[in-house]
């Protein structure tokens, strides 16, 4: 009975309430908002204001009373933006390669949600918005720069949201370059020793942004390429299919790099992953801006496959990291090793490489063949207690030194 009374009172109240005032607030809350947020006035009057802002519809994104999100937003950044901008123009959010901020719903890294003096509500003008994350120095600091890069016209080649090509390129590398460069003309062909490279990936030899070398060539050039001795690997330019390789697979590389074969003849070997030529897993056969003709920066090459390691070392809980973490080859032997985890030296000697931790070798918890870890009967060394890659504890300790680390062996 009591419930029936409450229910009838509620229904009566709902039926008799005049919502007109609330409707007014929903339709034009702007005035009430601007009472307290006067600085928004100028922004709203800008020509390039976000359409809900122009319409004074603050409530499309904000809750005027309470919210679980910063800025009294009605939802997370990604859910809010994508609720209206569902797919982007021409499905520009969902191509195979997606820009990280788009993937992670961080639209505000590039766009201002209220208004901007720039097109597309960008927070900065032209390439400046790109340089917020992509370090300018690493892109255009060299002597020679591509004219489009000089102009700051990043989106001439790159799609800002997503693309079907690596590097968010709008077209395949060769197609993109040949839009401007006349790849079939005599001068171009002559510059490439008669090889029809116009349909190849130009970024194999050229840095498309900037370079200290002429013609934007990359910093290190594979010797045969530098000497224009393309026939070391390819058929002659005059042959029917000049880009055909002279030998199959890795034999092509081994023909010259005979010593490298020994590097792979180890208990742990990186012979894996590409049955066409496994050297190309890591190296660029023509030119590179990285050491040892690596296709990318060393860390990116390694972590490209070792994705779980990347995840682990970039986790928020990994507070302490090895200072040489980006230089994997300072501790690991990339081709192969007889030591566990491809270490250059035995576990017990690994931390002494390059005299990095000389001092610790002298003053430390006793280690060596006589000091046995009671848990697994192995000799103790630095790696017993430290995780060289990184950990959540100071000095890269594997466990909390104030709690369980020592107790592992020294039972109380």
């Amino acid at each position, binding site marked *: 009975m009591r419930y029936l009374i409450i229910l009838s009172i509620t229904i009566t109240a709902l039926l008799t309430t005049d919502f007109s005032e609330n409707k007014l607030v929903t339709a034009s809350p702007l005035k009430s908002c601007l009472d307290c947020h006067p600085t928004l006035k100028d922004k709203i009057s800008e020509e390039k204001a976000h359409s809900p802002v122009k319409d004074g519809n603050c409530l499309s994104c904000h809750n005027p009373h309470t919210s679980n999100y910063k800025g009294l937003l009605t939802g997370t950044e990604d859910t809010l933006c994508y609720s209206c901008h569902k797919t982007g123009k021409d499905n520009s959010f969902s191509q195979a390669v997606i820009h990280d901020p788009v993937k992670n719903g961080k639209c505000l890294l590039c766009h201002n949600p209220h208004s901007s003096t720039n097109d597309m509500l960008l927070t900065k003008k032209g390439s400046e918005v790109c340089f917020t994350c992509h370090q300018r120095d690493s892109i255009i600091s060299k002597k020679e720069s591509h004219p489009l890069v000089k102009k700051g016209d990043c989106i001439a080649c790159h799609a800002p949201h997503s693309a079907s090509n690596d590097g968010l390129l709008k077209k395949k590398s060769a197609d993109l370059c040949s839009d401007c460069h006349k790849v079939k003309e005599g001068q171009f062909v002559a510059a490439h020793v008669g090889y029809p490279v116009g349909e190849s990936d130009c970024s194999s030899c050229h840095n498309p942004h900037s370079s200290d070398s002429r013609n934007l060539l990359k910093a290190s050039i594979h010797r045969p390429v530098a000497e224009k001795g393309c026939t070391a690997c390819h058929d002659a330019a005059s042959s029917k299919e000049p880009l055909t390789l002279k030998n199959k*697979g*890795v034999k092509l590389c081994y023909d010259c790099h005979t010593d490298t074969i020994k590097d792979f*003849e*180890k*208990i742990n*070997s990186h012979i894996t*992953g590409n049955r066409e*030529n496994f050297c190309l897993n890591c190296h660029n056969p023509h030119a590179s801006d990285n050491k040892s003709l690596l296709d990318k920066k060393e860390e990116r090459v390694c972590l490209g496959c070792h994705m*779980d390691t990347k995840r682990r070392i970039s986790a928020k809980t990994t507070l302490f990291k090895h200072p040489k973490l980006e230089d994997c080859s300072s501790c690991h032997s990339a081709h192969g090793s007889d030591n566990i985890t491809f270490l250059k030296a035995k576990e017990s000697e690994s931390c002494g490489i390059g005299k990095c931790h000389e001092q610790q070798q002298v003053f430390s918890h006793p280690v060596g063949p006589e000091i046995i870890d009671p848990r*697994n009967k192995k000799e103790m060394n630095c790696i017993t207690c430290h995780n060289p890659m990184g950990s959540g504890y100071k000095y890269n300790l594997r466990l909390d030194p104030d709690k369980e680390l020592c107790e592992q062996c020294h039972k109380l």
Partner: protein
Amino acid sequence: MKISQKFRKYFLRFTISIFMGLICLIPSLLFSADITLIASLSGDKQTGKFNQPVSLFFDESKKRLYIADTGNNRLISFDSEFNYISEFDVGGKLKYPMSLVRNSREQFFVIGGPAKHEIFFIDIPQRDFRRLEIRDSPAGENPVVPGKLAIDKNDNLYITDRGNGRILVLNSKGRFLREIKVENRFADFSDMRVDMDGNVYSLSTLEGKVYIFNNKGELTLSFGKKGEGLQEFEFPVSIAVDKNGLIYVLDQHKGSILVFKKDGIFQSSFLKNGWNPGELNKPSYLYTDMENKIYIVDRGNNRIQVFQAGK
């Protein structure tokens, strides 16, 4: 009155959620509770300390365990109670044994040698020790680089060819029978096992994928992906299949074994990273026998651990 009702409502919700949680956990609880560590071998005064053991083989007919003690250039044998029997290095000729199988004629095939990637044939009674040449196999883009070995009930020899991302099958006389590979040129067959019906269970570490082929070498099922989830692989390195058709995958970085039904449905996972007995540190190899014993080369801890799973 109101408080009591509210309390009752929340208590009911709490009980239901605990109950549902337990139902979800039952399969893994049942399985993990039925795993017991029965042996841990790391060498003793008699054998000397192991040095980087990489793999092992259990001979069902003779009930003997053979361990490839790679860093010590020897094979060591134990009986089914894990008592030491003997060791051999073919008079010092055997270098870096990294994978081994034994056929029904008690002959060994071992991958190793100074170059680490050669196959050797060893017949101890006949004092026969020689390099096995693989003849008649289709040429790959790269030289053949043997990685792991497996053997079936007909003594056919299975070899993972790391150089060309494929599995080569030779008959008992060493003659080439067939090659097994998949479209994806980045599929690396890092390990494989063959069941009683000749089905081949193989593992691609790079892709985080299990490939199953029938006895004609045709792909019948593939499953698995890389990731952080309970059912996903971080760095899978070894695969085994038990007599009931359960598929075991050893994940080196998770330090655990993931178990799947023969249709690829995840069943459970057990073991964890660590240094204590029963825990794993960079394990490299997994083997299951007909008595549901699980042998693990716990390489980072420099030991072999043997677990008994429920029979």
